[in-house]
């Protein structure tokens, strides 16, 4: 009973009218940006950061997380109806979802996806409820060496798994770490890389960087894209899937929930990876894999369930270890820091209202999303007709005015514009912005833990290997670095043996 008391109290927090309202606001925004092509959840959350200054920490995080998992629902709609994935995590849904639309069964696909998302999300919240306190309890004994290893591994995994090339993602992460050193040194108080500027004396703010690189950078990048008119279907008939469809999809939903939950916990995992993995698994398991791509309901149910489960479970490393598992979590991490809350193992105990308030709000959010995805789906389908060109100036103005309101400072607007251009150029030159922002957020923690560890060890870095948890984490770190190199070497040897010339390297 002792365990459940704070959990139940969390429901009290959620049911406060303000929190309910912001939960609704979050999931509606999430659903909208999921449906509309262009901005992803990371960009949207970044742009809305200024909004969270005036509200309570719980309320702010409830809304921001609602945007994140809400986008997973919304992204499905364009995948199924228009063959345009609204979100990266809905890319694989296109294959069978659109095939079902062509057979006149769009409603079935959307209905099954919504129900799968709901089940996946709910299973993951239950898993989160039980697993998170365990992880946090385990991590309470972590000292600086463990945190050093954990932060290093987290950054490396996110850089490795992200969409861009490995080398470029690592560079982005290193630049993020370097940017984090600007300002006062936490140990000696000495100014670093401020070039005498007073505005840089306290270091670069997270908000203008996130808003610039994710928000404005993405808006500028989208300007270059063709503005296509999409012809949305006027109506979607019968979103309630039949009992037969549900029965056929139930296995995929069950497997997707579990797979998504576990992949979501891993740093660098998250929604996109788990949707790909779930699709691959369903195809492999199927008696007749050739049905996939031609309207197999499992091909919609599996990935859509998995991406929701993963979106939810990716909160575990953030809320229990203080290590964000992906770029969106990095922004939520930043939002917590703004609110004066440092996520980490102490959070569950020291701030149970925040922790359980946010976790339990996800039940409500998922119920709201299920309602929006089945009975109200027509409303969101109609929103598809809004042209991206009309939304662009609105998002720009929200970004610029929003960042101004934080400190009433025009300098902050200039910073956002600067980092917006920087983010745009990164994308043009093939660098993922995610690892940069993540590394920037973790930079201070990593440096502090490293320096504390070195003091602890009297400067002897080999002592890292003497602590079991640190040793394991660093071992994994080294394996992740070496694995692709070894694989390449083996491939090269194999290629030489068969003397097949290779023209282009796919990625480094």
């Amino acid at each position, binding site marked *: 009973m002792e365990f459940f008391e704070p959990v139940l109290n969390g429901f009290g927090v959620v049911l406060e009218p303000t929190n309910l309202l912001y939960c609704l606001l979050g999931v509606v925004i999430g659903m909208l940006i999921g449906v509309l*092509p*262009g*901005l*992803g959840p990371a*960009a949207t959350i970044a742009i809305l950061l200024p909004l969270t200054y005036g509200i309570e920490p719980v309320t702010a995080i409830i809304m921001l997380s609602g945007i*994140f998992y809400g986008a997973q629902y919304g992204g499905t709609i*364009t995948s199924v109806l228009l*063959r*345009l*994935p*609204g*979100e*990266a995590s809905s*890319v694989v849904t296109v*294959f069978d979802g659109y095939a079902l*639309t*062509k*057979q*006149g069964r769009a409603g079935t696909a959307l209905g099954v996806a919504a129900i799968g998302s709901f089940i996946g999300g709910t299973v993951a919240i239950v898993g989160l409820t039980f697993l998170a306190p365990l992880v946090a309890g385990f991590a309470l004994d972590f000292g600086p060496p463990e945190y050093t290893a954990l932060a290093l591994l987290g950054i490396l995994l996110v850089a490795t798994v*992200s*969409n861009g090339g490995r080398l*470029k993602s690592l*560079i982005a992460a*290193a*630049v993020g770490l*370097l940017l984090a050193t600007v300002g006062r040194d936490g*140990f*000696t108080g000495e100014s*670093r*890389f401020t070039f005498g500027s007073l505005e840089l004396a306290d270091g670069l703010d997270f908000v203008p960087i996130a808003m610039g690189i994710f928000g404005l950078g993405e808006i500028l*990048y*989208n300007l*270059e*894209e063709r*503005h*296509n008119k999409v012809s949305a279907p006027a109506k979607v008939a019968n979103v309630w899937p039949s009992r037969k469809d549900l029965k056929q999809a139930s296995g995929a939903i069950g497997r997707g929930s579990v797979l998504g939950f576990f992949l979501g916990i891993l740093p660098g995992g*998250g929604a*996109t990876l788990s949707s790909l993995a779930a699709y691959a698994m369903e195809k492999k398991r199927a008696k007749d894999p050739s049905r996939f791509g031609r309207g197999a309901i499992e091909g919609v149910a599996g990935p859509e369930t998995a991406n929701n489960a993963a979106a939810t479970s990716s909160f575990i490393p953030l809320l229990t270890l203080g290590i964000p598992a992906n*770029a969106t979590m990095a922004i939520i991490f930043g939002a917590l820091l703004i609110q004066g809350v440092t996520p980490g193992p102490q959070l569950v105990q020291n701030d149970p209202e925040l922790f359980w308030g946010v976790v339990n709000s996800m039940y409500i959010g998922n119920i709201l999303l299920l309602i929006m995805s089945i009975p109200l789906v027509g409303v969101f389908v109609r929103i598809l007709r809004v042209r*991206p*060109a*009309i939304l*662009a*100036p609105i998002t720009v*103005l929200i970004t*610029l005015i929003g960042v101004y309101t934080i400190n*009433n400072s*025009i300098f902050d607007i200039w910073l956002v514009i600067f980092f917006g*251009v920087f983010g745009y150029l990164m994308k*043009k*030159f*093939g660098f993922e912005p995610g690892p940069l922002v993540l590394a920037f957020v973790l930079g201070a923690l990593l440096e502090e833990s490293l320096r504390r560890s*070195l*003091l602890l060890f009297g*400067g*002897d*870095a080999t002592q890292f290997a003497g602590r079991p948890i640190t040793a394991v984490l660093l071992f994994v770190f080294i394996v992740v670095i070496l694995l692709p190199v070894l694989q390449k070497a083996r491939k090269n040897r194999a290629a030489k043996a068969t003397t097949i010339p290779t023209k*282009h*390297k796919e*990625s480094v």
Partner: protein
Amino acid sequence: MTSSPEAGRRATGGSHPLHPEPEHRVADPGADFIEDLTPEDLAAQWEEERPPAAGPAANIASAIVVTALGVAGTIGSIRLGLGSPAEPEPGLWPFMISVLLVVLGIALGLFGRNVLDAEKFSRSSLQVAAGLLSLVVFTLLLGRIGFEIPALLLNVVWLRFLGRETWRMTAVLSVGITVAFYLLFVSALNVPIPHLF
């Protein structure tokens, strides 16, 4: 990573009126949809719709910038003082990252040259420049004459010239958006944004 550039790219670059895709239609009950593509075809089509890739020059340029940043960082950190592992000074950590940047930059120049993940700048990149210019003008004017007129101008530029909306739509929307922002930020939220009225 949930908001990948891929998503935006795919999401906006869907069916192409100018590029009729190869038709291999199967007799389907609802065959009047775009066309029938296997996942492999679809992946290939997305690949084609990506903006043209920039050649090795772009990667070499990136490598030079990264290496230069690393070198500058290294020099700066040495000036801050490195100390020793037992007694690290402020420069030690930035020094480690900067050296890593130099190594990664050189590695990119040597091994990553032929990876085709950079995009060419094209004529449509000028739209980005124009958009950027409008942001700069907005910010310059904001402190002097408040946000209303700059916001209106920004709307007109983004709707009419970058978004190719009609003049009528542009007029209605830009006035509407500006008024809505005024009502929201100034009247309702009382945000201390510089305003004229």
